[in-house]
């Protein structure tokens, strides 16, 4: 790693290799701390789950460390925990990620376990049964959290038939339906080297590590993959509202609609827009400034369209948690700010401040080995290029007031939105009196 330059992330050399079997390997040496972060991303996730077996990808990811051809679940845990390391596997809509964090002296062990979890998991029936029970219990527990319930309902209304309408963990009845055969089939289909990106960042030397990686993954044959296809989601042209009654101190609300993909050409204009409307440092953006700082309506309120942008279009969301008697005021507040940024150009000052914020804070995304490792995967998946680190300030500086206005008009809608409210409200949106009485 090279010495730091002012105001921009430290430059790093990415060693990029493709093994004979198609496995993509990205390596960055970072000797500043005696640790190594290993990250394998399998390019599938809940977006590829069949509707009737929603939750399959996530369940498969969580079972990777529960037994392989060589080791039992407990042996895997013993191996990594005995050296103080950690190995985790988890899934999202787009990716299944197996990651390990170890001290530099344990790099070989981390690599060995990572390879084993990817290539040779056996999904023992006993653990499949346990994982199903556990997922069902976790769904039941998550239902206690109004913000989570609001998020689920919001996605159902926004995505309709598109796979992203579901929670990544599926529904109780689809989880029940998943079998060991489904998990083995899922693994056979998607866990192939040509569908995996391995990124390793930390205190190692590439010429020493690379041959070990080649050996660890040598026996893994590549194979063509047929990904399921589905129609693109369509942005709503009407207003959709849902009120879910839950006895609580606050109402939690999501208001928004379908968003954009990460590769959208207006992504950077929308980052600037997000910063002005609902992000930025502290409570500088319009929504937190107005609804929290001026009106005192909430502790948590924000808005963003780029935060959830991925391979599939994400969501434009604005969120607020507030006392029930403030519900109407809060909805009005959110809608007014969305309308204002669509109808009126942002000021030169707001634009300049947002750009300064985005370019100035970019450096914080590259502080740790784990962060750099995640960046490498994003750069690969979204075609950002490894010189993105240098190019990013230019992308942001190029944005004009007109770009922000055009993007606001094109991608935001202050009338045809989805609103979900969870809290002490009646089905018709009236606040329940016994809860709001003060």
């Amino acid at each position: 790693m090279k010495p730091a330059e002012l105001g921009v992330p430290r430059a790093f050399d990415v060693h990029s290799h493709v093994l004979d079997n198609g496995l993509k390997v990205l390596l960055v040496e970072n000797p500043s701390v005696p640790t190594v972060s290993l990250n394998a991303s399998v390019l599938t996730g809940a977006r590829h789950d069949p509707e009737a077996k929603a939750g399959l990808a996530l369940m498969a990811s969580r079972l990777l460390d529960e037994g392989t051809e060589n080791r039992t679940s407990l042996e895997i845990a013993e191996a990594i925990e005995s050296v103080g390391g950690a190995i985790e596997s988890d899934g999202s809509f787009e990716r299944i990620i197996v990651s390990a964090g170890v001290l530099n002296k344990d790099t070989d062990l981390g690599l060995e376990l990572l390879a084993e979890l990817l290539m040779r998991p056996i999904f023992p029936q006993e653990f499949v049964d346990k994982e199903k029970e556990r997922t069902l219990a976790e769904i039941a527990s998550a239902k206690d959290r109004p913000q989570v319930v609001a998020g689920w309902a919001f996605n159902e209304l926004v995505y309709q038939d598109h796979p992203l309408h579901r929670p990544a963990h599926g529904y109780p009845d689809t989880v029940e339906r998943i079998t060991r055969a489904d998990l083995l089939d899922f693994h056979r289909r998607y866990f192939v080297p040509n569908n995996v990106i391995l990124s390793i960042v930390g205190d190692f030397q590439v010429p020493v590590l690379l041959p070990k990686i080649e050996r660890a993954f040598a026996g893994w044959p590549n194979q063509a993959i047929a990904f399921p296809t589905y129609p693109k989601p369509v942005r709503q042209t009407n207003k959709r509202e849902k009120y879910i009654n839950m006895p609580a101190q606050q109402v939690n609300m999501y208001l928004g609609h379908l968003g954009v993909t990460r590769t959208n050409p207006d992504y950077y204009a929308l980052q600037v827009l997000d910063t002005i409307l609902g992000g930025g440092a502290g409570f500088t953006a319009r929504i937190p400034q107005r609804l929290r700082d001026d009106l005192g309506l909430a502790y948590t309120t924000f808005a963003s369209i780029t935060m959830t942008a991925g391979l599939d279009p994400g969501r434009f969301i604005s969120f607020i948690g507030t006392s029930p008697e403030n519900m109407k005021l809060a909805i009005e507040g959110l809608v007014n700010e969305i309308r204002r940024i669509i109808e009126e150009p942002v000021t030169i000052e707001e634009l300049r401040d947002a750009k300064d914020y985005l370019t100035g804070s970019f450096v914080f995304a590259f502080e740790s080995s784990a962060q750099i490792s995640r960046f490498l995967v994003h750069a690969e998946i979204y075609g950002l290029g490894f010189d993105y680190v240098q190019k990013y300030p230019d992308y942001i500086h190029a944005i004009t007031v007109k770009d922000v206005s055009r993007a606001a008009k094109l991608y935001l809608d202050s009338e045809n939105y989805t609103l979900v409210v969870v809290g002490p409200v009646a089905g018709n949106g009236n606040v329940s009196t016994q809860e709001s009485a003060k």
Partner: protein
Amino acid sequence: MSSLVIPSAFATEDVRRTVLDNGLVVLTREVHTSPIVTAMIWYRVGSRNEELGHTGKSHFLEHMLFKGTDRFKKGQIDLITHRNGGGNNAFTSHDFTAYYFNFASDRWDVALEIEADRMVNCAFELDEFEAEKKVVIEELKTGLDSPWGLLLQDVEAAAFKIHPYRNPIVGWLQDVERATVEQQQAYYRKYYQPNNAILVIVGDFDTGQVLNSVAHAFRPIPAGPAPPPMLLREPEQLGERRLVVRWRSKVPRLAIAYHAPEIGHAASYALQVLAVILTEGKASRLYQRMVEQEQSVTFVSAEYGEAKDPTLFHIRAEARGTHSIEGIESSIYDELERIVSNNVTPHELERAKHQIEAHFILSRERTLDQALLFGQIETLYGLDYIDSYLQRIGAVTSEDIEHACTRYLHENNRTVGRLLNDGSGQESEEEGETG
């Protein structure tokens, strides 16, 4: 017996401690791997300093410090942070209140000016105070909508009868509602002064220059009268305390809290190792027993957090399916008894020590993480705690754990809280579509 590979002095190497004439403690450490500087200020005041009827004062004050001074008007602190591409935040605990800025290293000095100014010049305008009170109340309510927030609040209030650790950090709702701007300002004057603060700066800078800037910003602030000491001591608990919180959830939850010693106490190291042996990782005792074998919980966690005064050792679990909370509770006690009668194995002990050591190193990569560690430990105890930390952990024996378990994790010393359904049903929904 233990094979720790990295001494914990690794963490405090090159940390320079300077004390200004006005009593401000300054900790600096140069880290040049990223062009970033973290500047934090820690005040030795938290909910432990609050009197009955005045809870939440420390936390409310933390909010007010963002509402402006004569020099930095309302919104300015955030705006300066924003324009400089930085990040800022703050947090309050039982024992301290801390504020931080993260900036690129070519523009971070403004953090010093802000901290020096708001140490003494916080504005306390009535309108701003009342508006922020609403925000604090919303924050408090968010906590009341969380099952663990509710349960732990009651458990702590029952475990401590006298010591202020019994009060929620955010305060009791009525106290926050009744708070006045005059009281809040008096509280600020009492605790916010250089001789009650620690400034921590970690990152890409030159120490000599930074100490000059620090002196320039903070030296003009005179030392104040020493804040009053907090003298309350919790009497020994003489029997189990049990409580139930009735709530809308269908998922029963269990929280067990044992009185435990303060940071630096000989037994505190054994309790930290024990917490790891019990629930850290899939090979841990309670995970193997309750998640894997009995399948009675979705998770179980044991936790000892360092604190200035004698504190609590928490064990929490969330029930799964139809498993009874009584069965879950007795499994936990059974496992604790086994530890006393059979001791932990040498292998378990070794594994736990390695986990603590690796975590200590793996979690200190960012400048903010380092500043957090230095500030917290200096506030609670003194930096030398870090230097001997891994050595003390490494020296813990299975007998130490047995003794700590016998002394602290017994029936008469515990408070047991259960969160159970209040008889309410599922949520109801209604949707509409227009347009």
